[in-house]
Protein backbone atom coordinates (compact mmCIF):
# COMPACT_ATOMS: atom_id res chain seq x y z
CA UNK A 1 0.00 0.00 0.00
CA UNK A 2 1.31 3.40 -0.94
CA UNK A 3 0.73 5.74 1.99
CA UNK A 4 1.42 8.81 -0.10
CA UNK A 5 -1.07 7.95 -2.83
CA UNK A 6 -3.51 10.65 -1.70
CA UNK A 7 -0.84 13.27 -1.01
CA UNK A 8 -1.03 14.38 -4.63
CA UNK A 9 -3.65 17.04 -5.42
CA UNK A 10 -4.73 15.01 -8.47
CA UNK A 11 -5.78 11.97 -6.47
CA UNK A 12 -6.92 13.89 -3.40
CA UNK A 13 -9.32 16.00 -5.45
CA UNK A 14 -11.50 13.00 -6.18
CA UNK A 15 -11.23 11.56 -2.69
CA UNK A 16 -12.23 14.89 -1.11
CA UNK A 17 -15.21 15.11 -3.42
CA UNK A 18 -16.39 11.64 -2.44
CA UNK A 19 -15.81 12.13 1.32
CA UNK A 20 -17.17 15.66 1.84
CA UNK A 21 -20.92 14.81 1.56
CA UNK A 22 -20.57 12.06 4.16
CA UNK A 23 -18.98 14.47 6.65
CA UNK A 24 -21.80 16.96 6.05
CA UNK A 25 -24.45 14.25 6.58
CA UNK A 26 -22.70 13.18 9.77
CA UNK A 27 -22.47 16.81 10.93
CA UNK A 28 -26.18 17.39 10.29
CA UNK A 29 -27.23 14.18 12.07
CA UNK A 30 -25.05 14.96 15.07
CA UNK A 31 -26.31 18.55 15.15
CA UNK A 32 -29.94 17.34 15.24
CA UNK A 33 -29.15 14.92 18.05
CA UNK A 34 -27.05 17.44 19.95
CA UNK A 35 -29.60 20.25 19.69
CA UNK A 36 -32.37 17.86 20.76
CA UNK A 37 -30.36 16.92 23.84
CA UNK A 38 -29.32 20.50 24.51
CA UNK A 39 -32.57 22.35 23.95
CA UNK A 40 -35.22 19.77 24.93
CA UNK A 41 -33.70 17.12 27.21
CA UNK A 42 -31.04 18.89 29.28
CA UNK A 43 -32.39 20.42 32.51
CA UNK A 44 -32.47 24.13 33.23
CA UNK A 45 -29.36 25.38 35.00
CA UNK A 46 -29.86 26.14 38.69
CA UNK A 47 -27.94 29.44 38.56
CA UNK A 48 -28.18 30.68 34.99
CA UNK A 49 -31.65 29.51 33.94
CA UNK A 50 -32.18 28.90 30.23
CA UNK A 51 -29.38 31.23 29.12
CA UNK A 52 -26.73 28.60 29.71
CA UNK A 53 -27.95 26.71 26.60
CA UNK A 54 -25.65 28.96 24.55
CA UNK A 55 -23.02 26.52 25.79
CA UNK A 56 -24.06 24.02 23.10
CA UNK A 57 -22.81 26.41 20.41
CA UNK A 58 -20.24 28.41 22.33
CA UNK A 59 -18.02 25.65 23.73
CA UNK A 60 -17.88 23.46 20.57
CA UNK A 61 -16.97 26.42 18.35
CA UNK A 62 -14.40 27.68 20.86
CA UNK A 63 -12.79 24.23 21.01
CA UNK A 64 -12.78 23.96 17.24
CA UNK A 65 -11.29 27.45 16.84
CA UNK A 66 -8.19 26.34 18.75
CA UNK A 67 -8.08 22.81 17.36
CA UNK A 68 -8.37 23.98 13.75
CA UNK A 69 -5.53 26.44 14.28
CA UNK A 70 -3.42 23.59 15.62
CA UNK A 71 -4.23 21.39 12.61
CA UNK A 72 -3.58 24.31 10.27
CA UNK A 73 -0.21 24.90 11.94
CA UNK A 74 0.66 21.20 11.53
CA UNK A 75 -0.04 21.45 7.79
CA UNK A 76 2.03 24.65 7.73
CA UNK A 77 4.93 22.83 9.37
CA UNK A 78 4.70 20.10 6.70
CA UNK A 79 4.69 22.83 4.05
CA UNK A 80 7.89 24.40 5.32
CA UNK A 81 9.76 21.19 6.11
CA UNK A 82 8.80 18.92 3.21
CA UNK A 83 7.64 21.58 0.74
CA UNK A 84 4.56 19.49 -0.03
CA UNK A 85 1.92 21.18 -2.13
CA UNK A 86 -1.22 19.59 -0.75
CA UNK A 87 -0.45 20.48 2.88
CA UNK A 88 -0.29 24.18 2.01
CA UNK A 89 -3.60 23.87 0.19
CA UNK A 90 -5.15 22.14 3.20
CA UNK A 91 -3.92 24.91 5.51
CA UNK A 92 -5.48 27.50 3.21
CA UNK A 93 -8.72 25.52 3.16
CA UNK A 94 -8.92 25.21 6.94
CA UNK A 95 -8.24 28.89 7.76
CA UNK A 96 -11.66 30.39 6.82
CA UNK A 97 -13.52 27.70 8.78
CA UNK A 98 -11.26 28.32 11.76
CA UNK A 99 -11.87 32.05 11.55
CA UNK A 100 -15.62 31.43 11.36
CA UNK A 101 -15.52 29.18 14.45
CA UNK A 102 -13.52 31.84 16.33
CA UNK A 103 -16.00 34.52 15.33
CA UNK A 104 -19.01 32.43 16.41
CA UNK A 105 -17.32 31.62 19.73
CA UNK A 106 -16.73 35.34 20.40
CA UNK A 107 -20.21 36.33 19.23
CA UNK A 108 -22.11 33.71 21.24
CA UNK A 109 -19.85 34.50 24.19
CA UNK A 110 -20.96 38.13 24.00
CA UNK A 111 -24.63 37.08 24.03
CA UNK A 112 -23.96 34.81 26.97
CA UNK A 113 -21.99 37.46 28.80
CA UNK A 114 -24.71 40.10 28.61
CA UNK A 115 -27.30 38.34 30.83
CA UNK A 116 -24.84 36.53 33.10
CA UNK A 117 -21.93 38.98 33.52
CA UNK A 118 -23.91 42.13 32.69
CA UNK A 119 -21.66 43.04 29.77
CA UNK A 120 -21.10 41.96 26.18
CA UNK A 121 -17.33 42.30 26.38
CA UNK A 122 -14.61 42.52 28.99
CA UNK A 123 -10.87 42.71 28.41
CA UNK A 124 -10.40 39.41 30.14
CA UNK A 125 -7.41 37.19 29.30
CA UNK A 126 -9.51 34.47 27.65
CA UNK A 127 -11.50 36.91 25.51
CA UNK A 128 -8.47 38.94 24.50
CA UNK A 129 -6.40 35.93 23.48
CA UNK A 130 -9.34 34.51 21.50
CA UNK A 131 -9.63 37.87 19.72
CA UNK A 132 -5.92 37.68 18.93
CA UNK A 133 -6.60 34.22 17.46
CA UNK A 134 -9.20 35.74 15.14
CA UNK A 135 -6.62 38.28 13.95
CA UNK A 136 -4.06 35.53 13.48
CA UNK A 137 -6.49 33.74 11.16
CA UNK A 138 -7.13 37.01 9.28
CA UNK A 139 -3.40 37.69 9.06
CA UNK A 140 -2.76 34.19 7.75
CA UNK A 141 -5.41 34.55 5.04
CA UNK A 142 -4.29 38.06 4.09
CA UNK A 143 -0.63 37.07 3.83
CA UNK A 144 -1.39 33.87 1.91
CA UNK A 145 -3.24 35.88 -0.74
CA UNK A 146 -0.87 38.86 -0.83
CA UNK A 147 1.58 37.54 -3.43
CA UNK A 148 1.50 37.01 -7.16
CA UNK A 149 3.19 33.67 -6.68
CA UNK A 150 0.88 31.43 -4.61
CA UNK A 151 3.80 29.25 -3.47
CA UNK A 152 5.44 32.28 -1.91
CA UNK A 153 2.17 33.07 -0.12
CA UNK A 154 2.00 29.46 1.09
CA UNK A 155 5.42 29.56 2.67
CA UNK A 156 5.23 33.06 4.15
CA UNK A 157 1.81 32.42 5.68
CA UNK A 158 2.96 29.03 6.98
CA UNK A 159 5.79 30.66 8.93
CA UNK A 160 3.37 33.26 10.31
CA UNK A 161 0.99 30.51 11.43
CA UNK A 162 3.82 28.72 13.22
CA UNK A 163 4.84 31.90 15.06
CA UNK A 164 1.20 32.34 16.09
CA UNK A 165 1.07 28.89 17.70
CA UNK A 166 2.36 30.44 20.95
CA UNK A 167 -1.11 31.96 21.32
CA UNK A 168 -2.78 28.52 21.70
CA UNK A 169 -1.45 27.63 25.18
CA UNK A 170 -2.16 31.22 26.24
CA UNK A 171 -5.84 30.80 25.28
CA UNK A 172 -6.09 27.35 26.81
CA UNK A 173 -4.49 28.18 30.15
CA UNK A 174 -5.67 31.80 30.38
CA UNK A 175 -8.48 30.99 32.82
CA UNK A 176 -5.97 29.37 35.18
CA UNK A 177 -3.10 31.84 34.77
CA UNK A 178 -5.21 34.97 35.10
CA UNK A 179 -8.09 34.48 37.44
CA UNK A 180 -10.34 37.00 35.68
CA UNK A 181 -13.99 37.00 34.68
CA UNK A 182 -14.23 34.08 32.25
CA UNK A 183 -15.02 30.96 34.24
CA UNK A 184 -12.76 27.95 34.38
CA UNK A 185 -13.47 24.80 32.45
CA UNK A 186 -16.19 22.49 33.74
CA UNK A 187 -14.82 19.57 31.72
CA UNK A 188 -11.47 17.87 32.06
CA UNK A 189 -10.05 14.46 31.40
CA UNK A 190 -10.51 13.62 35.08
CA UNK A 191 -14.24 14.27 35.11
CA UNK A 192 -16.83 16.97 34.98
CA UNK A 193 -18.89 19.17 37.24
CA UNK A 194 -21.78 19.22 34.74
CA UNK A 195 -25.02 17.34 34.51
CA UNK A 196 -24.49 14.28 32.32
CA UNK A 197 -27.05 15.26 29.61
CA UNK A 198 -25.51 18.71 29.36
CA UNK A 199 -22.11 17.14 28.86
CA UNK A 200 -23.40 14.65 26.29
CA UNK A 201 -25.15 17.39 24.36
CA UNK A 202 -22.01 19.50 24.35
CA UNK A 203 -19.80 16.63 23.20
CA UNK A 204 -22.26 15.66 20.45
CA UNK A 205 -22.37 19.26 19.25
CA UNK A 206 -18.56 19.35 19.29
CA UNK A 207 -18.45 16.23 17.15
CA UNK A 208 -20.92 17.89 14.79
CA UNK A 209 -18.77 21.04 14.54
CA UNK A 210 -15.74 18.83 13.94
CA UNK A 211 -17.41 16.91 11.10
CA UNK A 212 -18.66 20.16 9.58
CA UNK A 213 -15.15 21.61 9.70
CA UNK A 214 -13.74 18.57 7.89
CA UNK A 215 -16.49 18.67 5.27
CA UNK A 216 -16.13 22.41 4.66
CA UNK A 217 -12.33 22.13 4.44
CA UNK A 218 -12.59 19.31 1.92
CA UNK A 219 -14.97 21.29 -0.28
CA UNK A 220 -12.73 24.34 -0.04
CA UNK A 221 -9.54 22.43 -0.77
CA UNK A 222 -11.14 21.20 -3.99
CA UNK A 223 -11.59 24.83 -5.07
CA UNK A 224 -7.99 25.61 -4.14
CA UNK A 225 -6.74 22.59 -6.11
CA UNK A 226 -8.80 23.57 -9.16
CA UNK A 227 -7.53 27.15 -9.00
CA UNK A 228 -3.89 26.12 -8.71
CA UNK A 229 -4.01 23.33 -11.26
CA UNK A 230 -6.32 25.02 -13.73
CA UNK A 231 -3.75 24.70 -16.52
CA UNK A 232 -3.07 21.03 -15.86
CA UNK A 233 -4.41 18.48 -18.31
CA UNK A 234 -6.19 16.40 -15.68
CA UNK A 235 -8.27 19.42 -14.64
CA UNK A 236 -9.25 20.07 -18.24
CA UNK A 237 -10.35 16.46 -18.56
CA UNK A 238 -12.66 16.71 -15.56
CA UNK A 239 -16.35 16.42 -16.45
CA UNK A 240 -17.17 19.53 -14.36
CA UNK A 241 -14.53 21.59 -16.22
CA UNK A 242 -15.93 20.80 -19.64
Amino acid at each position, binding site marked *: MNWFYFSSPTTFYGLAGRLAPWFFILAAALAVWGLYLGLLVAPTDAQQGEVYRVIFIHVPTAWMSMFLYFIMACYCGLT*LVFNTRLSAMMARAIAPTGAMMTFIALWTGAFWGRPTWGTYWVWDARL*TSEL*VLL*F*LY*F*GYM*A*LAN*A*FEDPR*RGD*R*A*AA*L*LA*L*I*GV*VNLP*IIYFSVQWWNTLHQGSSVSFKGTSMHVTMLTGMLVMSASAWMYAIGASLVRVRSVILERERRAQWVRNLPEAA
Partner: protein
Amino acid sequence: MSAPTPKRHQASGSFSGGFSWAMARDLRLAWRHPDEAVLTVAFFALVASLFPLGIGAEPQLLARIGPGVIWVGALLAAFLALPGLFAADYADGSLEQMTLSPHPALGWAAGKVAAHWIVSGLPLTLLSPLIGLQYGLAPDTLGVQALSLLIGTPVLSLLGGACAALALGARGGGMLLALLALPLFVPVLIFGAGAAEAQATGLSAAPHLSLLGAALIAALVGLPVAVGAAVRIAVD
Protein backbone atom coordinates in the same frame (compact mmCIF):
# COMPACT_ATOMS: atom_id res chain seq x y z
CA MET B 1 49.58 7.96 6.21
CA SER B 2 46.83 10.30 5.39
CA ALA B 3 47.47 13.32 3.30
CA PRO B 4 47.38 16.61 5.20
CA THR B 5 43.99 18.17 4.85
CA PRO B 6 44.13 20.94 2.30
CA LYS B 7 43.82 24.38 3.73
CA ARG B 8 40.42 25.79 2.94
CA HIS B 9 40.57 29.05 1.09
CA GLN B 10 36.91 29.77 0.56
CA ALA B 11 35.38 32.09 3.11
CA SER B 12 33.67 30.23 5.90
CA GLY B 13 30.65 31.80 7.50
CA SER B 14 29.75 31.96 11.14
CA PHE B 15 26.91 33.28 13.24
CA SER B 16 29.02 35.90 14.99
CA GLY B 17 30.71 37.00 11.77
CA GLY B 18 27.40 37.64 10.05
CA PHE B 19 25.89 39.19 13.15
CA SER B 20 28.64 41.74 13.74
CA TRP B 21 29.01 42.53 10.04
CA ALA B 22 25.28 43.21 9.52
CA MET B 23 24.95 45.15 12.76
CA ALA B 24 27.95 47.36 12.00
CA ARG B 25 26.71 47.98 8.45
CA ASP B 26 23.17 48.91 9.48
CA LEU B 27 24.40 51.11 12.32
CA ARG B 28 26.72 52.95 9.94
CA LEU B 29 23.83 53.43 7.49
CA ALA B 30 21.59 54.70 10.29
CA TRP B 31 24.34 57.06 11.47
CA ARG B 32 24.70 58.54 8.01
CA HIS B 33 20.92 58.91 7.57
CA PRO B 34 19.80 59.76 11.08
CA ASP B 35 16.41 61.09 9.94
CA GLU B 36 14.67 57.73 10.28
CA ALA B 37 15.69 57.28 13.91
CA VAL B 38 14.82 60.89 14.68
CA LEU B 39 11.40 60.49 13.05
CA THR B 40 10.64 57.43 15.18
CA VAL B 41 11.41 59.31 18.37
CA ALA B 42 9.55 62.41 17.20
CA PHE B 43 6.49 60.32 16.38
CA PHE B 44 6.58 58.81 19.87
CA ALA B 45 6.77 62.23 21.55
CA LEU B 46 4.04 63.59 19.31
CA VAL B 47 1.58 60.73 19.94
CA ALA B 48 2.23 60.92 23.67
CA SER B 49 1.47 64.65 23.70
CA LEU B 50 -1.80 64.19 21.77
CA PHE B 51 -3.48 62.26 24.58
CA PRO B 52 -3.49 65.01 27.24
CA LEU B 53 -4.84 67.40 24.59
CA GLY B 54 -7.58 64.99 23.56
CA ILE B 55 -8.60 63.47 26.88
CA GLY B 56 -8.02 66.36 29.27
CA ALA B 57 -5.05 67.39 31.36
CA GLU B 58 -6.14 66.64 34.95
CA PRO B 59 -2.98 65.44 36.74
CA GLN B 60 -4.70 62.42 38.32
CA LEU B 61 -6.12 61.24 35.01
CA LEU B 62 -2.74 61.63 33.31
CA ALA B 63 -0.91 59.72 36.03
CA ARG B 64 -3.55 56.99 35.68
CA ILE B 65 -3.32 56.58 31.88
CA GLY B 66 0.38 57.50 31.55
CA PRO B 67 1.95 54.01 31.63
CA GLY B 68 -0.49 52.63 29.08
CA VAL B 69 -0.28 55.59 26.73
CA ILE B 70 3.51 55.58 26.79
CA TRP B 71 3.59 51.87 26.03
CA VAL B 72 1.10 52.12 23.19
CA GLY B 73 2.98 55.12 21.77
CA ALA B 74 6.30 53.27 21.92
CA LEU B 75 4.70 50.19 20.36
CA LEU B 76 3.27 52.18 17.46
CA ALA B 77 6.55 54.02 16.93
CA ALA B 78 8.44 50.71 16.89
CA PHE B 79 5.85 49.32 14.47
CA LEU B 80 6.14 52.28 12.08
CA ALA B 81 9.92 51.84 12.00
CA LEU B 82 9.58 48.20 10.85
CA PRO B 83 9.38 48.65 7.05
CA GLY B 84 12.82 50.30 7.14
CA LEU B 85 14.35 47.08 8.43
CA PHE B 86 14.40 45.09 5.19
CA ALA B 87 12.53 47.08 2.53
CA ALA B 88 15.44 49.12 1.12
CA ASP B 89 17.79 46.13 1.05
CA TYR B 90 15.09 44.05 -0.61
CA ALA B 91 14.42 46.72 -3.24
CA ASP B 92 18.07 47.21 -4.28
CA GLY B 93 19.01 43.53 -4.14
CA SER B 94 21.40 43.70 -1.16
CA LEU B 95 19.23 41.22 0.71
CA GLU B 96 19.71 38.68 -2.06
CA GLN B 97 23.47 39.18 -1.92
CA MET B 98 23.39 38.63 1.83
CA THR B 99 21.61 35.30 1.40
CA LEU B 100 24.42 34.30 -0.99
CA SER B 101 27.07 35.14 1.60
CA PRO B 102 28.68 32.25 3.51
CA HIS B 103 27.27 33.51 6.78
CA PRO B 104 24.05 31.81 7.90
CA ALA B 105 20.89 33.92 7.48
CA LEU B 106 20.24 33.44 11.19
CA GLY B 107 23.34 35.49 12.04
CA TRP B 108 23.09 38.51 9.79
CA ALA B 109 19.30 38.70 10.10
CA ALA B 110 19.70 38.83 13.89
CA GLY B 111 22.41 41.49 13.44
CA LYS B 112 20.06 43.62 11.35
CA VAL B 113 17.32 43.29 13.97
CA ALA B 114 19.78 44.20 16.73
CA ALA B 115 20.88 47.32 14.83
CA HIS B 116 17.24 48.18 14.23
CA TRP B 117 16.53 47.91 17.94
CA ILE B 118 19.47 50.17 18.78
CA VAL B 119 18.15 52.75 16.34
CA SER B 120 14.43 52.54 17.26
CA GLY B 121 13.73 50.65 20.51
CA LEU B 122 16.62 52.01 22.56
CA PRO B 123 15.95 55.73 21.86
CA LEU B 124 12.28 55.16 22.69
CA THR B 125 13.30 53.58 25.99
CA LEU B 126 15.65 56.44 26.79
CA LEU B 127 13.01 59.04 25.96
CA SER B 128 10.23 57.38 27.97
CA PRO B 129 11.16 58.86 31.41
CA LEU B 130 10.91 62.34 29.91
CA ILE B 131 7.43 61.62 28.55
CA GLY B 132 6.56 60.01 31.88
CA LEU B 133 7.46 63.26 33.64
CA GLN B 134 5.00 65.10 31.40
CA TYR B 135 2.34 62.69 32.63
CA GLY B 136 3.36 63.27 36.23
CA LEU B 137 4.44 59.71 36.96
CA ALA B 138 6.29 59.05 40.22
CA PRO B 139 10.07 58.49 39.97
CA ASP B 140 9.87 54.76 40.82
CA THR B 141 7.17 54.30 38.16
CA LEU B 142 9.41 56.06 35.63
CA GLY B 143 12.18 53.60 36.41
CA VAL B 144 9.94 50.55 36.07
CA GLN B 145 8.46 52.01 32.88
CA ALA B 146 11.91 52.42 31.32
CA LEU B 147 12.95 48.94 32.48
CA SER B 148 9.82 47.35 30.99
CA LEU B 149 10.51 49.13 27.69
CA LEU B 150 14.14 48.02 27.81
CA ILE B 151 13.05 44.38 28.12
CA GLY B 152 9.98 44.66 25.89
CA THR B 153 11.15 46.60 22.85
CA PRO B 154 13.70 43.94 21.74
CA VAL B 155 10.79 41.45 21.66
CA LEU B 156 8.85 43.91 19.50
CA SER B 157 11.83 44.30 17.15
CA LEU B 158 12.23 40.51 16.81
CA LEU B 159 8.52 39.80 16.28
CA GLY B 160 8.19 42.78 13.98
CA GLY B 161 11.34 41.81 12.08
CA ALA B 162 9.89 38.40 11.27
CA CYS B 163 6.61 39.99 10.12
CA ALA B 164 8.39 42.69 8.08
CA ALA B 165 10.42 40.02 6.27
CA LEU B 166 7.27 37.96 5.60
CA ALA B 167 5.45 40.97 4.15
CA LEU B 168 8.29 41.94 1.76
CA GLY B 169 6.91 42.44 -1.72
CA ALA B 170 3.35 41.68 -0.63
CA ARG B 171 0.26 43.54 -1.78
CA GLY B 172 -1.27 45.68 0.94
CA GLY B 173 2.00 46.99 2.36
CA GLY B 174 1.64 48.78 5.67
CA MET B 175 -1.90 47.63 6.46
CA LEU B 176 -0.92 44.02 5.93
CA LEU B 177 2.09 44.47 8.20
CA ALA B 178 -0.20 45.95 10.87
CA LEU B 179 -2.53 42.95 10.63
CA LEU B 180 0.42 40.57 11.01
CA ALA B 181 2.46 42.32 13.68
CA LEU B 182 0.06 44.11 16.03
CA PRO B 183 -1.80 40.99 17.26
CA LEU B 184 1.56 39.41 18.09
CA PHE B 185 2.55 42.54 20.03
CA VAL B 186 -0.46 42.20 22.36
CA PRO B 187 1.16 40.04 25.09
CA VAL B 188 4.23 42.33 25.23
CA LEU B 189 1.97 45.35 25.62
CA ILE B 190 -0.05 43.69 28.39
CA PHE B 191 2.97 42.76 30.50
CA GLY B 192 4.94 45.91 29.71
CA ALA B 193 2.17 48.36 30.55
CA GLY B 194 1.11 46.09 33.42
CA ALA B 195 4.52 46.44 35.08
CA ALA B 196 4.42 50.24 35.28
CA GLU B 197 0.72 50.14 36.13
CA ALA B 198 1.35 47.76 39.05
CA GLN B 199 4.19 49.96 40.31
CA ALA B 200 1.99 53.07 40.09
CA THR B 201 -0.80 51.44 42.11
CA GLY B 202 1.58 50.22 44.81
CA LEU B 203 1.75 46.55 43.77
CA SER B 204 4.86 44.64 42.82
CA ALA B 205 6.00 45.01 39.22
CA ALA B 206 8.18 41.89 39.53
CA PRO B 207 5.69 39.32 38.11
CA HIS B 208 5.12 41.41 34.98
CA LEU B 209 8.82 42.05 34.51
CA SER B 210 9.58 38.35 35.00
CA LEU B 211 7.03 37.38 32.35
CA LEU B 212 8.42 40.05 30.04
CA GLY B 213 11.92 38.68 30.64
CA ALA B 214 10.71 35.17 29.89
CA ALA B 215 9.17 36.45 26.65
CA LEU B 216 12.49 38.10 25.77
CA ILE B 217 14.46 34.90 26.35
CA ALA B 218 11.98 32.86 24.31
CA ALA B 219 12.10 35.49 21.55
CA LEU B 220 15.90 35.58 21.53
CA VAL B 221 16.05 31.80 21.18
CA GLY B 222 13.26 31.27 18.67
CA LEU B 223 12.71 34.36 16.59
CA PRO B 224 16.12 34.91 14.91
CA VAL B 225 15.56 31.53 13.22
CA ALA B 226 12.12 32.71 12.10
CA VAL B 227 13.51 36.03 10.80
CA GLY B 228 16.21 34.20 8.86
CA ALA B 229 13.67 31.75 7.41
CA ALA B 230 11.31 34.60 6.51
CA VAL B 231 14.09 36.43 4.64
CA ARG B 232 14.94 33.24 2.75
CA ILE B 233 11.27 32.83 1.75
CA ALA B 234 11.22 36.44 0.58
CA VAL B 235 14.36 36.13 -1.54
CA ASP B 236 13.86 32.64 -3.01
